[in-house]
């Protein structure tokens, strides 16, 4: 066990170094997209923890991301906290929100929970218009400042975003991976598998579910703060219902129980608008088609994945290999 952990730490550091070199080689747009991928990886891993492991569905993670983003921006503007603390505030605020939501969620199951979180995703961002401290429809500025001078003159703003987001992604994946491998991860899987049996073995169902929601929300809050960092502002329109849906799509494409798959889902989510753009130009279509093609592709991909690779490509591959081996014997 100890040896495996050393290997994992080594792998994560290696991942960081590779990302560092890649960020030096590609142009600004790609660096920006890299930052988006990192944000999506964080958000998708929060969904994998919640839905894949504890078996609770949330269509409201966009709203929890908004909570994190607003908390970070307010901490930055009103309290003038250093940037690292702003992200901590984001995680804590979203986790508190998640704990409240989780307390409600523990009483609900399946479709009831999905609908409640759906209502939250639609309702919460509009609440920002009610409080002047949150800046209404225009939102708030969220400025993490320029990259430190010690990184050199050449070091661009987007590269700085990418570094922060990439580091955030590595840390979050590291934490989520360890939680899922711990007692809590096993507890959640037991609950997902059979709630009654889990209860009989002495697991406190409600407490475990609320814990899952709290942790997942905290991670989503970090993703929200990082997302608004790359955009530069926090406003209700940055967290539409479509964001919550995309995250769920990303998680399903990744394979709802495969944490390393989060990378696949994140890349697909960032790549789809690009692909749609190319396709739209190739067929020379009207504006209505061009703007809606990404949404169309995401939805189509979601349906096809659920129908034909329901447990994700990685899991599917593993199952096929296992079957193959069994046949050989």
């Amino acid at each position: 066990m100890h040896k495996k952990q050393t290997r994992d730490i080594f792998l994560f550091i290696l991942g960081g170094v590779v990302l560092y070199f890649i960020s030096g080689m590609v142009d600004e747009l790609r660096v920006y997209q890299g930052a988006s991928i990192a944000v999506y990886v964080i958000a998708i891993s929060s969904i994998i923890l919640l839905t894949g492991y504890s078996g609770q569905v949330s269509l409201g993670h966009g709203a929890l991301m908004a909570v994190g983003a607003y908390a970070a921006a307010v901490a930055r503007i009103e309290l003038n906290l250093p940037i690292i603390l702003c992200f901590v505030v984001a995680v804590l605020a979203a986790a508190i929100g998640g704990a409240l939501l989780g307390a409600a969620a523990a009483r609900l199951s399946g479709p009831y929970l999905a609908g409640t979180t759906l209502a939250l995703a639609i309702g919460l961002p509009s609440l920002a218009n009610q409080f002047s401290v949150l800046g209404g429809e225009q939102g708030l500025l969220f400025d993490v400042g320029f990259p430190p001078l010690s990184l050199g003159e050449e070091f661009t703003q987007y590269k700085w975003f990418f570094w922060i987001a990439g580091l955030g992604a590595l840390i979050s994946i590291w934490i989520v991976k360890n939680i899922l491998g711990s007692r809590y991860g096993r507890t959640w899987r037991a609950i997902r598998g059979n709630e009654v049996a889990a209860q009989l073995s002495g697991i406190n169902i409600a407490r475990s579910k609320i814990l899952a929601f709290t942790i997942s929300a905290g991670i989503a809050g970090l993703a929200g703060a990082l997302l608004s960092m790359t955009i530069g502002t926090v406003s209700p329109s940055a967290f539409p219902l479509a964001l919550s849906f995309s995250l769920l799509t990303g998680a399903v494409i990744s394979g709802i129980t495969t944490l390393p798959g989060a990378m696949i889902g994140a890349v697909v989510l960032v790549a789809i608008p690009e692909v749609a753009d190319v396709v739209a130009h190739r067929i020379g279509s009207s504006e209505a088609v061009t703007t809606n093609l990404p949404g169309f592709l995401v939805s189509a991909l979601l349906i096809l994945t659920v129908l034909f690779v329901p447990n994700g490509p990685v899991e599917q591959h593993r199952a096929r290999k296992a079957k193959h081996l069994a046949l050989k014997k």
Partner: protein
Amino acid sequence: MDFLNTLLIGITSGSIYSLMAISMVLVWRSTRVVNFAQAGMALLSTYFGFEAVTKLGSFWIALPVAMIGGALFAALVEMILIRLLVKHSSSGPIAGVAPIIATLGLLGLIRASASMIWGGQDVRIIGPVSNDGFTINGTTLVFSPLKLLILITVIILMLILSIVFQKTNIGLALRASAYAPEIARLSGIKVDWVRTLGWALAGAAGAVAGMFQTVNGNGTLSPDSIEFSLLLVSGFIAAVIGGLDSLIGAVIGGLVLGLMISFVLMYISSGLFFIAPFVILLTVLFIRPQGIFGAKAARRA
């Protein structure tokens, strides 16, 4: 006078939510799927209705056209998507969430397609009667002939539906398949077709809700409009408040929701438009997690 206005507006919009909730309940009872695409299907049927209005010129011809279109589309969705889903994704960790995710995908697909086809033009449906309020003793109410008409039509449709459910063989088959599919199959009911029928009825009910929601609003139709986001959330919330399993629950859930939203907007703040349904839903679920009319066991099904 304010009070009367608020009450009448609440009942009218509530009756539309009731219809939407009924369509959710019909689908839930027939296939145990909460159809998040229901509002999307209603949207599509309303576009069918719009095409019919522009080509044929009459709202009263367009309404049945939208209903038939909606019913056919819903039946197709059940036959293709839902049957495949049951076949492929009924095991593994995805099983619990697969129907939710698939219907959400369908919602996205419908919205994107509708925007592609009709997005470039100004889509407008004019109601069959005026939406200017009645005047009593010199004061003008918000309640209009159109709202009265909506209310009457919805009540008639609900009566027809309850007669179908309680008095006919089809209704009996629908109830039997929902209650005990195995036993229904053994007694010679073609459960698969009954399920498709349940979806078709839901599609028709959703079509009426979509048409009325459009003319009751400002008449314009767009996949991104507030009216449809509201239909999406309200239909679901009304069904859940009522208990997902009960048609009467759906009607009452819709009316409760319509009235509550209307009173909150009037007497507290109009900025609470989207957060009010959420608070109402949470309040009801905290008191009764299975909804007002839901059976205790239905929550786990």
